[in-house]
Protein backbone atom coordinates (compact mmCIF):
# COMPACT_ATOMS: atom_id res chain seq x y z
CA UNK A 1 0.00 0.00 0.00
CA UNK A 2 1.29 3.43 -0.90
CA UNK A 3 1.58 6.15 1.66
CA UNK A 4 -0.97 8.20 -0.27
CA UNK A 5 -3.71 5.95 1.05
CA UNK A 6 -2.70 6.61 4.67
CA UNK A 7 -4.43 9.39 6.55
CA UNK A 8 -4.06 10.76 10.06
CA UNK A 9 -7.82 10.38 10.46
CA UNK A 10 -10.66 8.83 8.54
CA UNK A 11 -14.20 10.04 9.24
CA UNK A 12 -16.96 7.62 8.26
CA UNK A 13 -20.06 9.68 7.56
CA UNK A 14 -20.58 13.21 6.25
CA UNK A 15 -23.46 14.70 8.19
CA UNK A 16 -22.92 17.73 10.40
CA UNK A 17 -20.89 15.68 12.92
CA UNK A 18 -18.58 14.22 10.29
CA UNK A 19 -18.13 17.46 8.37
CA UNK A 20 -17.37 19.33 11.60
CA UNK A 21 -14.78 16.72 12.54
CA UNK A 22 -13.30 17.11 9.05
CA UNK A 23 -13.14 20.90 9.43
CA UNK A 24 -11.39 20.73 12.82
CA UNK A 25 -8.94 17.98 11.89
CA UNK A 26 -7.98 19.49 8.53
CA UNK A 27 -7.59 22.94 10.02
CA UNK A 28 -5.22 21.39 12.57
CA UNK A 29 -3.23 20.10 9.56
CA UNK A 30 -4.13 16.46 10.07
CA UNK A 31 -4.50 14.65 6.77
CA UNK A 32 -8.17 13.71 6.84
CA UNK A 33 -10.51 11.69 4.64
CA UNK A 34 -14.29 11.73 4.97
CA UNK A 35 -16.14 8.76 3.48
CA UNK A 36 -19.88 9.06 2.94
CA UNK A 37 -22.35 6.54 1.58
CA UNK A 38 -24.56 9.33 0.31
CA UNK A 39 -24.44 13.01 -0.53
CA UNK A 40 -22.51 14.98 2.13
CA UNK A 41 -24.94 16.55 4.59
CA UNK A 42 -26.61 13.46 5.97
CA UNK A 43 -30.08 13.98 7.36
CA UNK A 44 -29.38 17.71 7.52
CA UNK A 45 -30.29 17.93 3.82
CA UNK A 46 -33.71 16.52 4.71
CA UNK A 47 -34.53 19.78 6.48
CA UNK A 48 -36.08 22.50 4.34
CA UNK A 49 -35.41 25.28 6.81
CA UNK A 50 -33.06 25.42 9.77
CA UNK A 51 -33.96 28.42 11.92
CA UNK A 52 -32.28 27.46 15.20
CA UNK A 53 -28.64 27.18 14.14
CA UNK A 54 -26.96 29.97 16.12
CA UNK A 55 -25.44 32.70 14.01
CA UNK A 56 -27.56 31.88 10.98
CA UNK A 57 -31.09 33.29 10.98
CA UNK A 58 -32.49 30.87 8.44
CA UNK A 59 -30.92 28.49 5.97
CA UNK A 60 -31.89 25.31 4.15
CA UNK A 61 -30.24 22.09 5.25
CA UNK A 62 -28.87 21.72 1.72
CA UNK A 63 -27.17 25.11 1.84
CA UNK A 64 -25.74 24.55 5.31
CA UNK A 65 -24.41 21.16 4.20
CA UNK A 66 -22.70 22.71 1.21
CA UNK A 67 -21.09 25.42 3.33
CA UNK A 68 -19.77 22.84 5.82
CA UNK A 69 -18.48 20.69 2.97
CA UNK A 70 -16.77 23.71 1.38
CA UNK A 71 -15.20 24.69 4.71
CA UNK A 72 -13.80 21.19 5.17
CA UNK A 73 -12.46 21.07 1.62
CA UNK A 74 -10.92 24.54 1.93
CA UNK A 75 -8.87 23.27 4.87
CA UNK A 76 -7.64 20.36 2.74
CA UNK A 77 -10.05 17.64 3.86
CA UNK A 78 -10.66 14.98 1.20
CA UNK A 79 -14.26 13.82 0.79
CA UNK A 80 -15.48 10.69 -0.99
CA UNK A 81 -19.26 10.72 -1.44
CA UNK A 82 -21.68 7.97 -2.47
CA UNK A 83 -19.16 5.33 -1.40
CA UNK A 84 -19.95 2.37 0.80
CA UNK A 85 -17.63 0.85 3.38
CA UNK A 86 -17.32 -2.90 2.90
CA UNK A 87 -15.03 -3.72 5.82
CA UNK A 88 -13.32 -2.12 8.78
CA UNK A 89 -10.33 -3.11 10.85
CA UNK A 90 -10.38 -0.95 13.94
CA UNK A 91 -8.53 -3.14 16.42
CA UNK A 92 -4.98 -2.57 15.24
CA UNK A 93 -3.05 0.62 15.85
CA UNK A 94 -3.19 1.25 12.10
CA UNK A 95 -6.89 1.27 11.25
CA UNK A 96 -8.06 0.13 7.82
CA UNK A 97 -11.20 1.03 5.90
CA UNK A 98 -11.99 -0.93 2.72
CA UNK A 99 -14.61 0.38 0.30
CA UNK A 100 -17.03 -1.67 -1.76
CA UNK A 101 -15.11 -0.73 -4.92
CA UNK A 102 -11.99 -2.33 -3.46
CA UNK A 103 -10.09 0.80 -2.50
CA UNK A 104 -8.47 0.61 0.92
CA UNK A 105 -7.33 3.40 3.23
CA UNK A 106 -5.49 3.34 6.54
CA UNK A 107 -5.37 5.84 9.36
CA UNK A 108 -4.17 6.45 12.89
CA UNK A 109 -7.63 7.42 14.12
CA UNK A 110 -11.18 6.82 12.96
CA UNK A 111 -14.23 8.93 13.76
CA UNK A 112 -17.54 7.16 13.21
CA UNK A 113 -20.39 9.49 12.25
CA UNK A 114 -22.73 7.24 10.25
CA UNK A 115 -25.87 9.02 11.48
CA UNK A 116 -29.35 7.56 11.31
CA UNK A 117 -32.18 7.02 8.90
CA UNK A 118 -35.96 7.10 9.05
CA UNK A 119 -37.35 3.99 10.65
CA UNK A 120 -39.59 1.97 8.36
CA UNK A 121 -42.57 -0.16 9.40
CA UNK A 122 -41.02 -3.16 7.68
CA UNK A 123 -44.35 -4.73 6.80
CA UNK A 124 -45.51 -6.31 3.50
CA UNK A 125 -46.07 -3.81 0.68
CA UNK A 126 -44.02 -0.98 2.17
CA UNK A 127 -41.20 -1.18 -0.38
CA UNK A 128 -43.60 -1.67 -3.29
CA UNK A 129 -45.62 1.46 -2.55
CA UNK A 130 -42.77 3.81 -1.60
CA UNK A 131 -43.35 6.77 -3.93
CA UNK A 132 -46.70 5.28 -4.92
CA UNK A 133 -48.63 6.37 -1.87
CA UNK A 134 -46.13 5.82 0.93
CA UNK A 135 -43.97 8.81 1.80
CA UNK A 136 -41.51 9.82 4.49
CA UNK A 137 -41.49 13.54 3.56
CA UNK A 138 -44.60 15.70 3.94
CA UNK A 139 -43.08 18.81 2.38
CA UNK A 140 -41.92 16.81 -0.67
CA UNK A 141 -45.03 14.86 -1.48
CA UNK A 142 -47.91 16.57 0.35
CA UNK A 143 -49.32 18.18 -2.78
CA UNK A 144 -49.88 14.78 -4.43
CA UNK A 145 -52.57 14.20 -1.82
CA UNK A 146 -54.67 17.33 -2.34
CA UNK A 147 -58.30 16.55 -1.38
CA UNK A 148 -57.37 12.95 -0.60
CA UNK A 149 -57.68 10.94 2.60
CA UNK A 150 -54.38 9.94 4.15
CA UNK A 151 -52.87 8.25 7.17
CA UNK A 152 -49.95 9.47 9.28
CA UNK A 153 -48.13 6.86 11.35
CA UNK A 154 -46.39 7.86 14.56
CA UNK A 155 -46.85 9.68 17.83
CA UNK A 156 -43.82 11.93 18.20
CA UNK A 157 -43.36 15.59 17.36
CA UNK A 158 -42.59 14.90 13.70
CA UNK A 159 -45.72 12.80 13.20
CA UNK A 160 -48.09 15.28 14.83
CA UNK A 161 -46.55 18.41 13.31
CA UNK A 162 -46.46 16.87 9.84
CA UNK A 163 -50.04 15.63 10.24
CA UNK A 164 -51.13 19.21 10.89
CA UNK A 165 -49.11 20.50 7.93
CA UNK A 166 -50.63 17.83 5.67
CA UNK A 167 -54.14 19.12 6.42
CA UNK A 168 -53.25 21.97 4.02
CA UNK A 169 -53.60 19.40 1.26
CA UNK A 170 -55.53 16.36 2.45
CA UNK A 171 -59.27 16.34 3.12
CA UNK A 172 -58.82 13.98 6.06
CA UNK A 173 -55.79 12.82 8.07
CA UNK A 174 -55.95 9.77 10.31
CA UNK A 175 -53.11 9.37 12.80
CA UNK A 176 -52.32 5.74 13.62
CA UNK A 177 -50.23 5.28 16.76
CA UNK A 178 -49.19 2.17 18.61
CA UNK A 179 -49.63 3.56 22.14
CA UNK A 180 -52.58 5.10 24.03
CA UNK A 181 -50.70 8.37 24.43
CA UNK A 182 -48.34 10.53 22.35
CA UNK A 183 -44.63 11.11 22.91
CA UNK A 184 -44.90 14.55 21.29
CA UNK A 185 -44.81 17.79 23.24
CA UNK A 186 -48.18 18.98 24.59
CA UNK A 187 -48.41 21.89 22.16
CA UNK A 188 -48.08 19.55 19.18
CA UNK A 189 -50.70 17.17 20.58
CA UNK A 190 -53.12 20.03 21.28
CA UNK A 191 -52.68 21.46 17.81
CA UNK A 192 -53.38 18.09 16.20
CA UNK A 193 -56.37 17.36 18.46
CA UNK A 194 -57.95 20.72 17.73
CA UNK A 195 -57.67 20.28 13.96
CA UNK A 196 -61.09 19.18 12.59
CA UNK A 197 -59.49 17.28 9.69
CA UNK A 198 -57.49 15.00 12.01
CA UNK A 199 -58.77 11.70 13.46
CA UNK A 200 -56.97 9.22 15.67
CA UNK A 201 -56.67 5.45 15.78
CA UNK A 202 -54.72 4.65 18.95
CA UNK A 203 -53.03 1.45 20.14
CA UNK A 204 -52.94 0.26 16.55
CA UNK A 205 -50.43 -0.46 13.84
CA UNK A 206 -50.39 -0.90 10.06
CA UNK A 207 -49.58 -4.49 9.23
CA UNK A 208 -49.96 -4.58 5.41
CA UNK A 209 -50.28 -2.28 2.40
CA UNK A 210 -52.50 -3.05 -0.62
CA UNK A 211 -53.01 -1.63 -4.12
CA UNK A 212 -52.32 -2.04 -7.83
CA UNK A 213 -50.40 0.84 -9.43
CA UNK A 214 -50.63 2.83 -6.22
CA UNK A 215 -51.61 2.41 -2.60
CA UNK A 216 -55.32 1.83 -2.07
CA UNK A 217 -55.73 0.48 1.45
CA UNK A 218 -53.97 -0.75 4.57
CA UNK A 219 -54.66 -3.35 7.21
CA UNK A 220 -54.71 -1.79 10.67
CA UNK A 221 -54.31 -4.08 13.64
CA UNK A 222 -55.65 -3.17 17.07
CA UNK A 223 -52.75 -4.10 19.35
CA UNK A 224 -55.06 -4.78 22.31
CA UNK A 225 -57.60 -7.05 20.67
CA UNK A 226 -55.58 -8.32 17.71
CA UNK A 227 -58.47 -7.40 15.42
CA UNK A 228 -57.45 -6.39 11.89
CA UNK A 229 -59.52 -4.01 9.76
CA UNK A 230 -58.93 -2.92 6.17
CA UNK A 231 -58.81 0.87 5.87
CA UNK A 232 -59.14 2.69 2.53
CA UNK A 233 -56.54 5.39 2.08
CA UNK A 234 -54.78 7.25 -0.71
CA UNK A 235 -51.53 7.75 1.12
CA UNK A 236 -49.54 6.92 4.22
CA UNK A 237 -46.85 9.19 5.70
CA UNK A 238 -44.54 7.40 8.12
CA UNK A 239 -42.80 9.30 10.95
CA UNK A 240 -41.78 6.71 13.53
CA UNK A 241 -38.35 7.95 14.48
CA UNK A 242 -34.88 7.04 13.43
CA UNK A 243 -32.51 4.12 13.64
CA UNK A 244 -28.74 4.35 13.85
CA UNK A 245 -26.81 3.33 10.72
CA UNK A 246 -24.55 1.05 12.71
CA UNK A 247 -25.19 -2.37 11.21
CA UNK A 248 -21.63 -2.38 9.82
CA UNK A 249 -20.23 -1.68 13.31
CA UNK A 250 -21.65 -4.73 15.08
CA UNK A 251 -18.81 -6.67 16.76
CA UNK A 252 -16.51 -3.72 15.93
CA UNK A 253 -17.33 -1.22 18.68
CA UNK A 254 -19.58 -1.38 21.73
CA UNK A 255 -23.24 -0.65 20.88
CA UNK A 256 -26.21 -0.41 23.24
CA UNK A 257 -29.50 -2.35 22.89
CA UNK A 258 -30.70 0.10 20.23
CA UNK A 259 -27.47 -0.30 18.24
CA UNK A 260 -26.27 3.18 19.18
CA UNK A 261 -22.53 3.65 19.67
CA UNK A 262 -21.47 3.87 23.32
CA UNK A 263 -19.06 6.77 23.87
CA UNK A 264 -17.30 8.50 26.76
CA UNK A 265 -17.52 12.23 27.38
CA UNK A 266 -14.65 12.77 24.92
CA UNK A 267 -16.50 10.74 22.27
CA UNK A 268 -14.08 7.83 22.50
CA UNK A 269 -15.56 4.40 21.81
CA UNK A 270 -14.63 1.03 23.28
CA UNK A 271 -11.68 0.82 20.85
CA UNK A 272 -8.56 3.01 21.31
CA UNK A 273 -8.21 5.52 18.49
CA UNK A 274 -11.83 5.16 17.45
CA UNK A 275 -14.23 8.00 18.22
CA UNK A 276 -17.87 8.59 17.35
CA UNK A 277 -20.24 11.53 17.07
CA UNK A 278 -23.64 12.61 15.83
CA UNK A 279 -26.99 10.84 15.68
CA UNK A 280 -25.51 7.34 15.86
CA UNK A 281 -24.17 7.68 19.42
CA UNK A 282 -26.03 7.13 22.67
CA UNK A 283 -27.62 10.46 23.50
CA UNK A 284 -30.98 12.05 24.10
CA UNK A 285 -31.13 15.09 21.85
CA UNK A 286 -30.40 14.76 18.15
CA UNK A 287 -30.01 18.15 16.52
CA UNK A 288 -27.66 19.68 13.96
CA UNK A 289 -26.20 21.76 16.78
CA UNK A 290 -25.56 18.76 19.03
CA UNK A 291 -24.02 16.84 16.13
CA UNK A 292 -21.70 19.76 15.47
CA UNK A 293 -20.77 19.81 19.16
CA UNK A 294 -20.08 16.07 19.24
CA UNK A 295 -18.06 16.31 16.04
CA UNK A 296 -15.93 19.04 17.55
CA UNK A 297 -15.22 17.05 20.70
CA UNK A 298 -14.47 13.88 18.71
CA UNK A 299 -12.07 15.77 16.43
CA UNK A 300 -10.21 17.38 19.31
CA UNK A 301 -9.97 14.07 21.18
CA UNK A 302 -8.79 12.34 18.00
CA UNK A 303 -6.23 15.11 17.44
CA UNK A 304 -4.87 14.51 20.91
CA UNK A 305 -4.76 10.75 20.33
CA UNK A 306 -2.96 11.10 16.98
CA UNK A 307 -0.46 13.54 18.46
CA UNK A 308 0.33 11.17 21.34
CA UNK A 309 0.62 8.23 18.96
CA UNK A 310 3.01 10.06 16.65
CA UNK A 311 5.08 11.31 19.59
CA UNK A 312 5.32 7.81 21.05
CA UNK A 313 6.25 6.24 17.71
CA UNK A 314 8.88 8.93 17.10
CA UNK A 315 10.32 8.35 20.54
CA UNK A 316 10.45 4.59 19.97
CA UNK A 317 12.15 5.01 16.59
CA UNK A 318 14.81 7.24 18.16
CA UNK A 319 15.50 4.86 21.03
CA UNK A 320 15.83 1.72 18.86
Amino acid at each position, binding site marked *: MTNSSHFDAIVVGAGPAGLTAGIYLSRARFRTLIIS*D*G*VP*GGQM*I*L*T*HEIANYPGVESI*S*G*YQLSNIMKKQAKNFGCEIL*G*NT*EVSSLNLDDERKEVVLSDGRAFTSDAVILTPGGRSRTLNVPGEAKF*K*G*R*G*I*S*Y*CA*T*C*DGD*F*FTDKEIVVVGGGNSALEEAVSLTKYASKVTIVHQFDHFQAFDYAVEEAKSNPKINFIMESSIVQFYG*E*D*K*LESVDIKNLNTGEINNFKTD*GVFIFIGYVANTEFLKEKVKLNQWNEIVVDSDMSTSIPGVFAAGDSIVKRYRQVTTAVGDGTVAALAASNYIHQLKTRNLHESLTH
Partner: protein
Amino acid sequence: MLYTNLHHLMTAADHQKLINENENVMICCGRMGPMCIPVYGIMEDLESEYTHVKFADMEFDNPEAYVIRDAPETRGFMGIPFTMYYKNGKLVKATSSIQSMSQVKSILDKEFAQVTVG
Protein backbone atom coordinates in the same frame (compact mmCIF):
# COMPACT_ATOMS: atom_id res chain seq x y z
CA MET B 1 -34.25 26.63 -10.72
CA LEU B 2 -32.40 23.49 -9.73
CA TYR B 3 -29.04 24.22 -8.13
CA THR B 4 -27.16 21.23 -9.46
CA ASN B 5 -24.18 20.72 -11.73
CA LEU B 6 -26.28 18.62 -14.09
CA HIS B 7 -27.45 19.66 -17.55
CA HIS B 8 -30.77 21.47 -17.03
CA LEU B 9 -33.74 20.83 -19.31
CA MET B 10 -35.92 23.93 -19.53
CA THR B 11 -38.44 23.00 -22.23
CA ALA B 12 -40.24 19.98 -23.63
CA ALA B 13 -38.26 20.59 -26.82
CA ASP B 14 -34.98 20.37 -24.85
CA HIS B 15 -36.19 17.07 -23.45
CA GLN B 16 -37.11 15.69 -26.86
CA LYS B 17 -33.81 16.80 -28.39
CA LEU B 18 -31.77 15.19 -25.61
CA ILE B 19 -33.48 11.81 -25.83
CA ASN B 20 -33.44 11.87 -29.65
CA GLU B 21 -29.76 12.69 -29.95
CA ASN B 22 -28.43 10.35 -27.27
CA GLU B 23 -28.67 6.59 -26.97
CA ASN B 24 -28.80 6.49 -23.16
CA VAL B 25 -30.37 9.24 -21.09
CA MET B 26 -31.22 9.55 -17.38
CA ILE B 27 -33.37 12.51 -16.31
CA CYS B 28 -34.30 13.36 -12.74
CA CYS B 29 -37.41 15.54 -12.46
CA GLY B 30 -37.79 17.05 -9.00
CA ARG B 31 -37.37 20.01 -6.69
CA MET B 32 -34.56 21.11 -4.38
CA GLY B 33 -36.02 18.87 -1.68
CA PRO B 34 -34.73 16.14 0.58
CA MET B 35 -35.87 13.22 -1.57
CA CYS B 36 -34.50 14.79 -4.77
CA ILE B 37 -31.11 16.24 -3.77
CA PRO B 38 -29.54 12.82 -3.03
CA VAL B 39 -30.52 11.59 -6.52
CA TYR B 40 -28.97 14.66 -8.20
CA GLY B 41 -25.81 14.03 -6.14
CA ILE B 42 -25.68 10.41 -7.26
CA MET B 43 -26.04 11.47 -10.91
CA GLU B 44 -23.28 14.07 -10.55
CA ASP B 45 -21.01 11.41 -9.08
CA LEU B 46 -21.81 8.93 -11.87
CA GLU B 47 -21.30 11.30 -14.82
CA SER B 48 -17.57 10.58 -15.07
CA GLU B 49 -18.03 6.82 -14.67
CA TYR B 50 -20.97 6.36 -17.06
CA THR B 51 -19.69 8.39 -19.99
CA HIS B 52 -22.06 6.55 -22.35
CA VAL B 53 -25.05 8.00 -20.49
CA LYS B 54 -26.31 11.59 -20.66
CA PHE B 55 -27.50 12.91 -17.29
CA ALA B 56 -29.92 15.81 -16.92
CA ASP B 57 -32.46 17.30 -14.55
CA MET B 58 -35.74 19.13 -14.99
CA GLU B 59 -37.68 21.18 -12.45
CA PHE B 60 -40.87 19.39 -11.44
CA ASP B 61 -42.90 22.60 -11.25
CA ASN B 62 -41.81 23.81 -14.68
CA PRO B 63 -44.98 23.63 -16.82
CA GLU B 64 -42.86 22.11 -19.60
CA ALA B 65 -42.10 19.15 -17.36
CA TYR B 66 -45.49 17.73 -18.36
CA VAL B 67 -43.46 15.53 -20.70
CA ILE B 68 -42.34 13.65 -17.59
CA ARG B 69 -45.17 14.28 -15.12
CA ASP B 70 -47.81 13.10 -17.60
CA ALA B 71 -45.94 10.13 -19.04
CA PRO B 72 -48.18 7.03 -18.81
CA GLU B 73 -45.37 5.17 -17.03
CA THR B 74 -45.62 7.58 -14.09
CA ARG B 75 -49.24 6.67 -13.39
CA GLY B 76 -49.45 5.96 -9.69
CA PHE B 77 -46.32 7.94 -8.88
CA MET B 78 -46.97 10.02 -5.75
CA GLY B 79 -43.47 10.91 -4.66
CA ILE B 80 -40.76 13.07 -6.15
CA PRO B 81 -38.39 12.89 -7.87
CA PHE B 82 -39.65 11.14 -10.98
CA THR B 83 -36.51 9.62 -12.51
CA MET B 84 -36.68 8.54 -16.14
CA TYR B 85 -34.35 6.35 -18.18
CA TYR B 86 -34.49 6.57 -22.01
CA LYS B 87 -32.89 4.22 -24.54
CA ASN B 88 -32.86 5.38 -28.18
CA GLY B 89 -35.57 7.92 -27.38
CA LYS B 90 -37.87 5.42 -25.66
CA LEU B 91 -38.64 5.31 -21.96
CA VAL B 92 -37.34 2.01 -20.59
CA LYS B 93 -37.60 2.60 -16.83
CA ALA B 94 -39.09 5.13 -14.42
CA THR B 95 -38.82 5.37 -10.64
CA SER B 96 -40.60 7.44 -8.02
CA SER B 97 -39.10 8.97 -4.85
CA ILE B 98 -35.56 8.75 -3.50
CA GLN B 99 -33.21 6.08 -4.83
CA SER B 100 -29.86 4.86 -3.52
CA MET B 101 -26.61 4.74 -5.45
CA SER B 102 -26.88 0.96 -5.76
CA GLN B 103 -30.46 1.17 -7.04
CA VAL B 104 -29.50 3.75 -9.70
CA LYS B 105 -26.39 1.81 -10.74
CA SER B 106 -28.32 -1.41 -11.06
CA ILE B 107 -30.80 0.26 -13.44
CA LEU B 108 -28.01 1.88 -15.47
CA ASP B 109 -26.10 -1.40 -15.70
CA LYS B 110 -29.21 -3.30 -16.79
CA GLU B 111 -30.84 -0.82 -19.18
CA PHE B 112 -27.70 0.78 -20.59
CA ALA B 113 -25.37 -2.22 -20.56
CA GLN B 114 -22.36 -1.79 -22.78
CA VAL B 115 -21.73 -4.66 -25.17
CA THR B 116 -18.11 -5.72 -25.36
CA VAL B 117 -17.11 -6.71 -28.88
CA GLY B 118 -14.41 -9.28 -29.55
